[in-house]
């Protein structure tokens, strides 16, 4: 069986490309750099592969700029599956695909800085902005949920303006709490669970990304838009004390 259509541990080269992920997966990469277009392409391609119901495919997911197909490692015609994927890739301009339906906009209250965001000052300095400008930039720009990954329900959100292209830290922060807002490389994450991180910890929300016992266990979907509503530490404590839903005081509107 030929696997020539699978790029061998591809680095660079033309996109989109199909790469093998061990024996049990295929990754369709739309870029090796984060862009809105590549992210939309990955989401739209995933939706289309799901509609097609291709044989051998067991599960689908997306990362920032790729569509992952978990496949049966003993599926006898991986080359044929790759050819089907290639035909689908060639059938339209995936980078021009629209965003998914059913998107929502969430305004999520967060304490920024202070003891709830000990690396905020550091992040502001790295951005080169004055602190009031930085706060405005953080809270007036909407970010989009680009992908859910790493931990249950955990969103990677972007992109922030270019001044937030600040690197990850070389030293890990040993532990930030669930609900922590962190920033790096023009992206925000709100952590699903307590975790060590190399991203700068700039704030804290009471928003729960993963609600295992709820009817809707995952609070966000790729394509949802998020804005950060700055609140005081007192407001945060009040929300935390009163919120039973997990929404942490977020205001939610349906977009499309």
């Amino acid at each position, binding site marked *: *069986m030929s*696997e020539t259509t699978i790029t*061998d*541990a*591809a*680095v660079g080269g033309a996109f989109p490309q199909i*790469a*093998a*992920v*061990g*024996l*049990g*997966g295929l*990754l369709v*990469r739309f*870029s*090796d*750099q*984060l862009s809105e277009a590549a992210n939309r392409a990955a989401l739209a391609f*995933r939706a289309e592969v799901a509609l097609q119901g291709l044989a051998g495919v*067991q*599960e*689908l*997911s*997306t*990362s*920032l*700029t*790729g569509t*992952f197909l*978990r496949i049966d*490692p*003993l599926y006898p015609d991986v080359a044929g599956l790759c050819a089907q994927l290639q035909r689908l890739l060639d059938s339209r301009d995936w980078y021009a695909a629209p965003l998914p339906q059913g998107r929502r906009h969430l305004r999520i209250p967060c304490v920024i800085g202070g003891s709830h965001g000990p690396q905020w000052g550091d992040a502001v300095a790295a951005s080169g902005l004055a602190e009031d400008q930085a706060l405005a930039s953080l809270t007036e720009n909407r970010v989009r949920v680009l*992908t*859910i*990954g*790493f*931990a*249950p*329900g*955990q969103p*990677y959100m972007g992109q922030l303006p270019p001044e937030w292209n600040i*690197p*990850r830290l*070389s030293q*890990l922060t040993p532990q930030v709490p669930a609900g922590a807002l*962190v920033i790096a490389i023009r992206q925000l*994450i709100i*952590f*699903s*669970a307590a*975790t*060590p*991180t*190399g*991203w700068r910890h700039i704030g804290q929300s009471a928003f729960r990304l*993963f609600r*295992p016992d709820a009817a809707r*266990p*995952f609070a966000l979907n790729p394509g949802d838009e998020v804005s950060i509503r700055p609140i005081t530490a007192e407001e945060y404590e009040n929300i935390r004390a009163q919120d039973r839903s997990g929404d942490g005081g977020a205001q939610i509107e349906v977009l499309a």
Partner: protein
Amino acid sequence: MSHGPAELQVLAAGPGISVQDLGRFGYLGQGVSASGAADPVAMHEGAALLGQSPDLAAIEMAGAGGSFRAARDLRISLTGAPMAARIGDSPVAWNASHLLPADVPLVLGGARGGVYSYLHLGGGVASPPLLGARATNAAAGLGRALAAGDVLPLGLDAKAGMVNQRLDPLPRFGGGLLRIVPSLQTGLFGAADLKRFCAIPFTRDPRGNRMGVKVLPDGAPFRSEGQLTILSEIIVPGDIQMTGDGVPYVLLNDCQTTGGYPRIGTVLPCDLPRVAQALPGAVLRFAFVSADEGRAALRQAQAALAALPRAVAPLVRDPHQMPDLLSYNLVDGVVSALAPEDLPDAQPQPTPEREAR
């Protein structure tokens, strides 16, 4: 024979005891890793010993054991890393099935020769499924470790009566060779490093848990090109992730679903139990195989699992075999040290570096 409820009481539990099945699938897109038993071979062995499905949930123990009791007679089987096992006052064999009589404590402790041990129950653990599975991933918020006082409901045992069976475990303990195929970033490593990766031995570091284990190279660390600029991509169990210090982690079933560290290769799924069961200090080696060789290995491993039910044999009460079956229980004379409060400490299980990238 007593007819109390079909449930198992946890009288004492060391750290790292959890309910596991063969994994939770279908939620990768929501950031939920498969989890499930670190040693799925043990799940198949335990099921074969009880004549039931390997999909039924069991109890996984990471180094330390626990003690258990039921209000009715239960069938149990014991697989994975051998522990000292006692039903009431009687030592019982590992890799075997037994009758656990009502109200008689089952005491398990001190795994040797491996990391993960399993207690399987006739009918399986029937706790309420979470997102369609019973696998526990406590760090991700899916279930929690078991603790004294927990009561686990059990499923209907269709084969009551079939006990005192034994099985020779499939080989996977003590480290050894791991077959790997290229991963997404294999091309970022130089040819010389790839060659060296497959030439040198690695030692299983004490740092490790159900997410992954660190393996120390006998020699210099491994560096890839563009290590800090890789976009976060999908991660699968078996991926060999090169963290910032150039020392690899082999990722296991609880691994995060995405990551930005370069991965030099992916261990075949059928060789992952060998990683999970390698004790700190065990020597592991890596060898690239072609995709076709990898698939042949997977087929062979599946056939070996499928053959397990036919390999089950009666547990012979031959005194000449007993020391062997009870292995170190008698050899080491540790049976008397099995009170729950004396259970040996768990395997050191610190968290590997989990960094959102």
